[in-house]
């Protein structure tokens, strides 16, 4: 995967929401982070757990058309050790954003819906970020934070065979499409991961918030 900021893109976007150098430093720090993958033991413990999860996804999708509007009632958001296995997930009461996103992708796949991992950088206050770091003190601390910026994972869903995406945030169970465009809680950079080559026929670009995003690279918003 080739991580880069497209200089042409930067020239054509609205004024920067975060200081470019600070963001660049954050992106450099988060470069090593890849979308969460749930591991499985090659035994009945993980097979049974995964079967339960995909089956339960079918139950939920029978009553809701949203990507995963039920995880918050099963798991709270919080720190989690890595790697994480299926048989551990079913016993946990707390999962992080990456695991919730990975589960959402699994849940959608169970009902035949295509979806994509999304990595993003969001802006909060430095106080809040320090609070996150404290919360994660036993699971690596601030490896996912930089000053007032934090790394976050979500899921992109598409409408039919288009390249127009919606970004579903399973941590808060809402679409990020209408979230703030600047300041607190805003998305300052986003990266859509497509290993399936879905976007190949769209010049490797997706449309989000009426903006064109390059696939598999960080897009600064």
């Amino acid at each position, binding site marked *: 995967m080739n991580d880069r900021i497209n200089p042409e893109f930067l020239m054509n976007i609205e004024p920067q929401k975060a200081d470019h150098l600070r963001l660049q430093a954050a992106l450099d720090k988060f470069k090593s982070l890849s979308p969460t993958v749930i591991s499985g033991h090659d035994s009945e413990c993980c097979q049974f757990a995964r*079967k*339960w999860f995909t*089956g339960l996804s*079918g139950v*939920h999708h*029978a*009553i809701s058309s949203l990507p995963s509007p039920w995880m918050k009632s*099963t798991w709270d958001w919080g720190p989690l050790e890595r790697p994480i296995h299926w048989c551990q997930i079913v*016993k946990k009461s707390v999962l992080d954003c990456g695991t919730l996103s990975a589960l959402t992708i699994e849940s959608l796949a169970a009902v035949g819906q295509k979806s994509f991992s999304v990595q993003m950088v969001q802006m909060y206050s430095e106080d809040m970020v320090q609070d996150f770091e404290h919360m994660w003190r036993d699971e690596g601390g601030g490896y996912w934070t930089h000053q007032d910026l934090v790394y976050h994972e979500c899921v992109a869903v598409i409408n039919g065979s288009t390249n127009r995406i919606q970004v579903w945030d399973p941590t808060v169970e809402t679409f990020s499409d209408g979230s703030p465009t600047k300041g607190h809680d805003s998305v300052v950079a986003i990266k859509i991961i497509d290993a399936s080559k879905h976007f190949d026929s769209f010049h490797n670009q997706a449309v989000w918030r009426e903006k064109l995003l390059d696939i598999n690279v960080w897009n600064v918003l």
Partner: protein
Amino acid sequence: MSAINPPPIIISSCHTGSSPAPGVGIARSIKAGYPNSVLIGKDQSAFSTGLHSPYFDDVWLTRPWGNIDLDKHLIQIKDRLDATSGFFIPGSDFEARWLATHNIPSVLSPSLEAFTSTVKPFANVHEYLPSKAPAFLDLKTDPREIYNFAVSNGWRVWLKGPMMDARKVYNWPNLLATWDGLLKTWGREHFFLQKEITGLDVTVAFSAYKGKLLGAAFMEKRQMTEEGKCWSGEVNACPADLFEDISKFVEKLQWTGGGELEFVRDEQGQLWFIDLNYRFPAWIYGATLAGINLPGLLVEAATGIPHLKTEAESHQFTRLIIEVPVSNDMQLPAPPVIKSKRKGVGVNKLTSINPGGLPQLMQRISNEISISNAKDQKLKKFEKLTSEEHHSLAPIFEHLSQPNSNTETPFRHFVEERAKAPFELISNFAKRVKKIKFSPAYSIKTNPDPRLMKLALEYGFRAEGISANELLSAHEVGHAFENMVYNGPVPLNPKDLHGNKIHVVFADSMESLKRLCQLKPSPAAHIGVRLKPFESSSRFGIRLESFEDYQEVAKVVKELLPADVGFAVHQHHQSSTNGEDVWLSQTRAFLQQAKLLEELCEKPIRIIDIGGGWTHESFIPFMGNALEQLTDEICHIFPNADEVIIEPGKAICEQSQFLVSRVLEKRGKEFIHEVVSDACLAELPLAVDFGRSVYHVNKSGEIAKLTTGVGRILGRICMEHDILANGILLPEKIEEDDLLIFSHAGAYESSMSYKFGNGKSYE
């Protein structure tokens, strides 16, 4: 900055409770456009909090709407406007409606034609705007029709008046109580029931002058109060297409003044019309903050004096609660006297609606509104009977009119044709299903009347019981044990069935499942689990949600279910409470739960049993529209299944009986508002729980189906809640000894009836 100031402007409705009026927002917007303008805040109560805001240069406090002399007040308004050559912007729909009949040019609000052309539910809204009106029903009709409308929409319905107020209602008793409360508040308003549309609230505020659209602002609500009023929102320019349509709308109605169109935008993007207000909305200053000053545009059009244009500060706004000093010239009224009341102690509370008494104004002008709303139709008093209803009811009168008839009322009238019809329809449906054995089951508890149980046998229904005694009674009329289904919270004791084996027994708990699996010999050819409806609070069934739930059930089925006993699953929830859509999605969720359970326990599911609780009127269309597809889905999900059992519940039998009673006493002088019947809740135990048709038969045998109204039919016993019908219009000529006949008395109304107040003891 504008060099010339407009003449003084009176702005009314200035209250700012949790459901605020627009006066303050209009004033702030005009001040933004004309900083040196003179604005007079007008309202009917010193408790109208906005009168104390700093945006008014003067205050005009009048008597409350309930007491004010409207003719004199009209003269006062005209005098004030003439004296200053000023303008008046009303902030309430009712005041604007009242003023519209007097056509004062300097009042900047819509014409009478605008009001009369758009009376809610405004079913022809699509002729003006790119939106639809949700399905609705005028409440002046047969109570059963109202009930069926609400059931068919899954009780996601709103009770609304044509001018103001809308309340969500949840069930029949709640509907009647809400309607009663609205009648007391608003007077004789014409109410209707409207389907709720699921989606996002969006609203368009606009400003128009003599049919020309001056501007419009499109607002999405982001945060709402418990009453559904906007607290925070995002305002943008109105989309061009919608702006064009609103232009035509205001031109056609020659609209002057502010206005607000409220919509719900559904998942497909369709706009559904919800409400039209004939004035600016209370959030209007939110639009001004976004750079769209609609009151400023209105004043500019009316005066020709340009208003100061301001840049958008933000497209998002939120409300704040702040304290301001009360004006020394208009101090708060004296503290209330604390009075003991039946339900506690009464003191003044902040009212969410205008404290100046707008409901009283509504009551005072309601005659005009009703006439304009229903000018071409007479008030509908009675519904026409269908020929089938005539055919079913006429024999009652004929029978009672026989000289030697000694039949005492109250009694139940069983109509065989009505009873047979659903059995025949469902039986024919079952025969048409080819992919799998499809078995309807008759729920014995719903009505154990042997006539109905024999019909069930005749038409190939299984008998479904919740106790051994029920199964034994079904056996007495000819049902074979091997065709029976047992399904209840009481664990089945095989001894009670004298060693007979039944078709399938369902466990309501894990304890019951373990016990049933360990019985030798097995009491049934199949043992199954009743599953609690997914994420519901039902007391019935085994919960199957968490990982541990599945693990536990799968383990028991895998390890304890005998190899020669089939595995089955069941779910039951009431369609008449939640609606068909919810029933279907819940059932599909149940099928997915069962599929997962089948995979985990590695036992094929042989029987899928689903129910129930449809109304008679909803089940037949359900069978035609959805049941065949659902059966196909079941076959696809469970390729190893042998049988689908469906238990329609009261849908089979509620229509089969009428309860016949007599009028014992009529009460009221000017109009008959109450009668006492010789029936009571003992004969009609669910009288208040759902809507039913009520028929009046006079001594000449003329039958009338009653519509809704303000009357009541009281029962014969000394119980406060013994009211057989509430909110019913009684005929003026009703007499003692006339018959009152209640429909839908053939299901639980029959099986749950009891002896009370007739001198007989319960054996």
